[in-house]
């Protein structure tokens, strides 16, 4: 290995390394402002100057941008270097206001720390500091251009990593500043990362404004509850407990510690690098929502009575026993929302499947096609993704099918951006494509609103033709026909050997199955994006009518969600357990579900929030929320991650695993689990893919970044979590194709997702400016023909003359005959217009009236 001299020592280096990297690795401190290990090198702050001597010439060079070469002599601590640093800091402070006491970054500011260590004690500058106006570019971000030292980190992140272009550097010299180009909310869903990237307090988050200081924080490692990527986060809460700062006042403990101050990233190179999406970062006030259920409730004579845990357990166990004895176990059904830890899911499935003995358990939305089974399970004999998020970055050819990545799984978008930067070809197939998709897609294919299945089958057909693998059931269809029906042309480019498919589990059964099969034929991989935050974990734990614990096929399949409600309408379901899901507002076909719900004798709702279904419940059990319980979570690629508890459960609520464990204890007399780790150990013992995983899972290693720079200290400790080991055994599957039923009408209602419209965001008061509350989107031309303007309120009229008040927004990227609505439907009951057959997306005639 080549060598060079660093501070009089012979040091080895790898070709292409910079002086800074080698020096940090060797424990030599070099201060930086603009350098960030995950961003392109800018070399603008001149803080990392070192003295370099090569071939007789000597001078100061920026170490972050200078590659080491053989025989170089580098000195980092000469008088000249020290003077350069001191003067550089004095220079940076010329226009930097010394308002550390009011600045939010005080205590975790690079400039503060480095001034303390390297800076001069006095300034020679005697003139007025420049004044620049404050910028509000995002409801959650605030930019103070006065404090900015123009290190370009935020711009690098925004333009290179997030691949948006509405934030940049402007002006020259004295007037130079960073900021948004336009007077609009920032486009990127990752803008919050600029807060953490910023070495000082120029960009601060409004959710955390002025609340507290870093030394008051308790930092807990957790996992994002918002999507199934399982973004790693650090959650900051105030130090609580009996003997700690701020918590102790005479006469007792403070009660206002049930608060999450902020959520920051936690680096994990497998999942999220050091970036997280804005939803994860800013949406956390739902833990203190006024909608929280605080007490167990039992309905007596049509009214909820406050109750205690004993009574609730007794009621549930007695009633379920009675129903099981009179009608059989098949009269009991259970639904889950996929929000909750693996431990909760394991005990939930154990309680329903083993103790009650019912197989009617599901986490998917009620859709007729899901009664056919689990699509991926039918292809692979296991329900999991074969690709990991890392595979996306390495893939040469990626097909993203039908998923609004920005709205549901934003972090996947970052991976796709970096894949495109590395030269991958990314093909996006969708009903429409917006600016978010154009950031990473190399080619966009738009299929008809009713042509989704044909488009997927065309991909499969093309794959089977090129590879000579026959597909039973598709012999009669020609590729030309399928393409015509789907409205696509020229998909040949998209399909090649080793393609990685990305699709989500809310797509029609046939689509998921076709894409999974196509990836098998092409020797490729696929990434199945679960829509439920812990969907993969719930499936692994056996919360599925067709899949048992650990991915075994159930001998007698149970009823899917659709079948449960159909059976309930007929009166076959007598008891329903609903765990963390509201079928009336989260699923389509509200009226049909309501018919079923009204027919059920005994409904137990386990949830953290009041919602519509709680009104029909007989027993309401308050559950702790994500940040209030600890446990393992499996992300969509099968990575088993661990989240610690941040705050205590709200009111009388309990963790879900504890509730199920108590119920199991009451039914069987087995001893209840003492801690969540006991359950995890049982999971690791009993669930095949999880076997051998350390409890609790996860390990960390350190990068050699200096401690004295807070923005780098945050990304110093990197976490790693193990993957569950799934075994795929692909087999030949038959396809049954019948074209999708078209709905007549002026407009087609299409179910869609919005980043800021989820069960959690709707409960966060602070998210209010971002939530599309009662919003539907329409094409501008359609708006014009209706005589409406962007932002007008309007009335949608359903086929049975139901009226829905909505706010219309214009969106140029959707087709003209489409009304885009956002699930969940807590704010408008628009899901009563969608029906079971519509794949949650196409529906009946609409007229819009002002």
């Amino acid at each position, binding site marked *: 290995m080549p060598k060079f001299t660093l501070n009089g020592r012979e040091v080895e280096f790898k070709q292409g390394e910079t002086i800074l990297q080698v020096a940090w690795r060797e424990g030599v401190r070099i201060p930086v402002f603009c350098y960030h290990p995950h961003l392109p090198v800018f070399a603008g702050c001149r803080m990392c100057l070192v003295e370099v001597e090569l071939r007789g010439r000597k001078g100061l060079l920026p170490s972050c941008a200078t590659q080491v070469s053989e025989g170089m002599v580098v000195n980092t601590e000469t008088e000249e270097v020290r003077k350069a640093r*001191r003067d550089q800091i004095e220079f940076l402070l010329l226009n930097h*206001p*010394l*308002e*550390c*006491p*009011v600045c939010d970054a*005080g*205590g975790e500011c690079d400039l503060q720390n480095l001034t303390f260590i390297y800076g*001069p*004690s*006095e*300034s*020679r500058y005697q003139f007025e500091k420049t004044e620049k106006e404050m910028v509000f570019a995002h409801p959650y971000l605030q930019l103070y251009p006065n404090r900015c030292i123009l290190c370009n980190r935020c711009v690098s992140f925004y333009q290179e990593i997030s691949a948006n272009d509405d934030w940049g550097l402007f002006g020259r010299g004295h007037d130079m500043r960073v900021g948004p180009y336009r007077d609009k909310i920032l486009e990127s869903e990752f803008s919050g990362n600029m807060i953490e990237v910023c070495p000082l307090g120029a960009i601060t988050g409004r959710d955390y*404004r*002025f*609340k*507290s*200081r870093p*030394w*008051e924080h308790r930092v807990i490692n957790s996992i994002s509850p918002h999507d199934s990527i399982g973004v790693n986060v650090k959650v900051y809460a105030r130090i609580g407990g009996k003997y*700690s*700062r*701020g918590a*102790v*006042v*005479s*006469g007792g403990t*403070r009660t*206002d510690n049930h608060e999450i101050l902020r959520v920051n990233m936690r680096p994990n190179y497998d999942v999220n690098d050091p970036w997280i999406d804005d939803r994860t970062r800013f949406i956390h006030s739902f833990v203190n929502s006024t909608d929280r259920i605080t007490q167990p409730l039992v309905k007596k004579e049509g009214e909820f009575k406050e109750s205690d845990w004993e009574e609730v357990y007794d009621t549930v166990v007695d009633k379920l026993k009675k129903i099981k004895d009179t009608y059989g176990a098949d009269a009991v059904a259970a639904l889950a929302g996929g929000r909750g830890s693996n431990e909760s899911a394991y005990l939930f499935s154990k309680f329903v499947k083993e103790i009650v003995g019912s197989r009617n358990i599901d986490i998917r939305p009620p859709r007729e096609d899901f009664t056919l089974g689990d699509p991926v399970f039918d292809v692979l004999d296991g329900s999991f993704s074969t690709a990991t998020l890392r595979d996306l970055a390495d893939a040469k050819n990626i097909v993203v099918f039908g998923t609004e990545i920005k709205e549901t799984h934003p972090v996947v978008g970052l991976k796709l951006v970096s894949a495109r930067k590395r030269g991958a070809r990314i093909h996006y197939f969708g009903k429409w494509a917006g600016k978010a998709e154009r950031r990473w897609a190399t080619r966009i294919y738009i299929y008809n609103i009713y042509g989704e299945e044909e488009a997927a089958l065309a991909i499969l057909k093309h794959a089977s033709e090129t590879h000579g693998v026959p597909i039973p059931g598709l012999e009669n269809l020609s590729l030309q026909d399928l393409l015509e029906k789907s409205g696509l042309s020229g998909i040949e480019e998209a399909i090649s050997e080793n393609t990685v498919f990305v699709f989500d589990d809310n797509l029609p059964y046939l689509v998921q199955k076709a894409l999974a099969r196509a990836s098998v034929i092409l020797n490729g991989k696929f990434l199945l994006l679960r829509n439920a935050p812990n969907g993969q974990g719930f499936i692994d734990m056996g919360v599925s009518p067709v899949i048992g614990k650990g991915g075994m096929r159930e001998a007698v399949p149970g009823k899917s969600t659709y079948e449960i409600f159909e059976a309930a309408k007929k009166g076959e379901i007598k008891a329903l357990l609903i765990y963390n899901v509201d079928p009336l507002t989260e699923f389509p076909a509200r009226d049909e579900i309501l018919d079923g719900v009204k027919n059920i004798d005994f409904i137990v709702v386990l949830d953290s929030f009041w919602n519509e279904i709680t009104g029909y419940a007989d027993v309401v059990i308050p559950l702790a929320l994500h940040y209030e319980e600890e446990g393992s979570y499996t992300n969509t690629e099968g990575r088993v991650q661990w989240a610690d508890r941040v705050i205590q459960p709200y009111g009388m609520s309990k963790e879900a695993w504890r509730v199920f464990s108590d119920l199991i204890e009451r039914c069987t007399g087995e001893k209840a689990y003492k801690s969540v780790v006991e359950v995890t150990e049982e999971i690791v013992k009993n669930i095949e893919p999880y076997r051998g995983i350390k409890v609790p899972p996860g390990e960390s290693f350190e990068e050699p970044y200096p401690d004295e720079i807070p923005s780098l200290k945050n990304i110093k400790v990197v976490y790693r979590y193990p993957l569950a080991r799934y075994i795929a055994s692909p087999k030949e599957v038959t396809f049954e194709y019948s074209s999708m039923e078209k709905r007549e009408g002026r407009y087609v209602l299409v179910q869609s997702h919005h980043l800021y419209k989820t069960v959690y965001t709707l409960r966060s008061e602070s998210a209010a400016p971002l939530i599309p509350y009662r919003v539907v989107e329409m094409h501008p031309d359609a708006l014009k023909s209706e005589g409406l303007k962007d932002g007008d309120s309007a009335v949608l009229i359903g086929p049975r003359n139901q009226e829905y008040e909505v706010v219309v927004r214009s969106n140029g990227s959707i087709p003209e005959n489409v009304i885009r609505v956002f699930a969940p439907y807590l704010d408008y009951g628009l899901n009563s217009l969608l029906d079971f057959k519509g794949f949650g997306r196409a529906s009946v005639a609409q007229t819009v009236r002002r």
Partner: protein
Amino acid sequence: MIGPLIKGLTITFKYIFKKKFTVQYPEERRELPPRAKWLHILQRHEDGKERCVACMLCASACPTEAIYIVGEENDLENPISHGERYAKVWDLDLGRCMFCGYCVEACPEEALAMTDEYELAVPTRKDLVLHKEDLLVEPGTPPVKTWLGFYRKEPIGAMPVTRPMEVHVEYEEYLKRRGPREAHE
């Protein structure tokens, strides 16, 4: 035998005619030294705005963790303090406080000061926690001179928001006495 008796009584009589030694406490209060460190006060600017900007330096300097602060953003129309933030909650737990004065030293805004108010007895433990309302002075109260000028090396003049009053005069005098100094020695 009589000798020592007389000797002893001489001292007694000597003291009888001396001025009384006892402080008649409730009626007469001993004047405390100017830097006496007793009950804290939160000061105000001349315009009646609060000085405290909830920087939480006092809370972090406090060795006994007696101070608890929650900051909040000022209403721009009707600000409570100068600057962007103010203390929504400023609690002092007398049950922990040991009147060391580190908080006053830490305060960059000269918002905190200590008075010679030592009569602090309360009947319940709840009353030991003093809130912002209790500690804030009335608008228009003349500022209490803190002892900061003695310790602080750097001028507070760099602070953008506030400019403490008399201490600076004192400091400038000190600078004059000290004479000019090189920026970097």
